[in-house]
């Protein structure tokens, strides 16, 4: 699964557990309007660390907080890319 699919899947899972409704998960959806509150986003970040082994929020002291779902996914994609570069997997 791609990072986008994993993120979407986790968001749907958390919303289902909290019995919350989800709007269409588009790239420009503002995260805080996705039906997840800050607790929901905290849970999402914790679970993504388990599935992806990545927590870009704590890996850097200089972060800009993602506002939209698209920002959020790119935040993870770029963290995954720099990890792969660091570990020599990238070509």
């Amino acid at each position: 699964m791609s990072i986008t699919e994993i993120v979407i899947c986790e968001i749907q899972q958390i919303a289902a557990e909290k019995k919350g409704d989800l709007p269409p998960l588009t790239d420009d959806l503002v995260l805080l309007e996705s039906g997840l509150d800050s607790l929901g986003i905290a849970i999402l970040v914790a679970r993504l660390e388990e599935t992806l082994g990545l927590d870009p929020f704590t890996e850097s002291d200089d972060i800009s907080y993602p506002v939209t779902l698209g920002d959020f996914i790119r935040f993870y994609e770029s963290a995954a890319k720099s990890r792969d570069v660091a570990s020599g997997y990238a070509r």
Partner: protein
Amino acid sequence: MKVLPNRATSLRDTLGNASDCSGRFLWGATASVSLRDLLRGTSLGGRLRELSGRSVLIATRDPLSAALALIELDGVAGRLIVGTPDLSSEHLSAVIAKGGVDAIVSDWGLHQRQDCDAPLHVRCGPTITRAPRVQVDPQATEWVLLTSGTTGAPKMLVHNFASLTAPIKSGQNQETDVVWGTFYDIRRYGGLQILLRAILGRGSFVLSSADESAGNYLGRLGAHAVTHISGTPSHWRRALMSPAVRAIAPRYVRLSGEIADQAILNALRSCYPQASIGHAYASTEAGVGFEVNDGLEGFPPSTIGARGEVEMKIEDSSLRIRSARAADRHVGEEGPAFVDDEGFVDTGDVVELRGDRYYFLGRRSGMINVGGLKIYPEEVEAVINRHPAVRMSLVRSRRSPITGSLVVADVVLKGEPDGADVKGEILVLCNENLAAHKVPATLRFVPALDVAAAGKLARHHA
């Protein structure tokens, strides 16, 4: 005793001495009040005299109504008990009994409830009716602040005008264009500090409301051109995820109430390059300890042991504070139970010296703080353990870049998982029986948990 000529003894006197209150406002979510109007009138229907000398519980829904009542009643009531917005009906009668409440000021139909027995009920609200100033015997009003407890009734801490205003430097932030804001409710210590700064200064104040989104509050702050704003790191992380964070351009940004880590300080620095950004250490018991303004997490060792208004020491790794800003005692107790022989308050916050800086590690007691809300691991474990397949569980905190901490659970099953979705069932059980922040964010099955010699689960606090 040192006499401070410009320091009045009650909140309203402070306003009365102000040369000119015109142009100064308290802006709430749905109403606003001019401080000049408040000086010429009352939000209490002219019933100030009846409240003189009484032990008054302020139990409002609207924070603006509470702020107005507090301003009017300081120096008039014998005791002001500041009811928090989350004061549950279960604890209300305990607070009334313990606080010797003989009058309740409220903006809703609280008087109709049988568990709210008091000889006098006074209605308040954000509407000022013109009335001449009532002359009553001046009182040294006790302020009682409630701190949220997860079990049992809230703690009731006694402060007074002097202890509450001691951290506020006269002469600071005195510009007339200062507009304060805070994500805190004004009925908690952190929010009350901002209300007092607004009143004692010469500016205005935009009050937040519990049922308001971060985006909406930021929009209102922007509309009133906020200059000085405070909140917990969790408040700020939430704000930074709202597009409306750009609606404000504050000169001063303050963090308190939780550990301010470097990531949040840097994010605020980059969002508000023009602002001075500081984090303060404060608690309802100890008062404001210190403020750190160098943009770095933790605090310099020079803070410790410096003789001054606030003295600090570290014992058993936890920070101890002694100052005139501390609460006097708990309601109903003779002396303060929370200080040592030398008068130091044990904050219970564990610190560590790394290099030339002290850093906060967390709460000694093991209590978990998720975005400012308290959790004791045992209460969550009790719910998980209700599932028939569960042998035992350990709930612990894990660091979260969003809410500071989260709770996670390690669960030992009675046998091998038999294919049923036990994890899903446990989460359903938790969601049905616990507030959202107490439900474990992640849950994993482990073969065993450490049990210490005394037969208790070994808890490892970071």
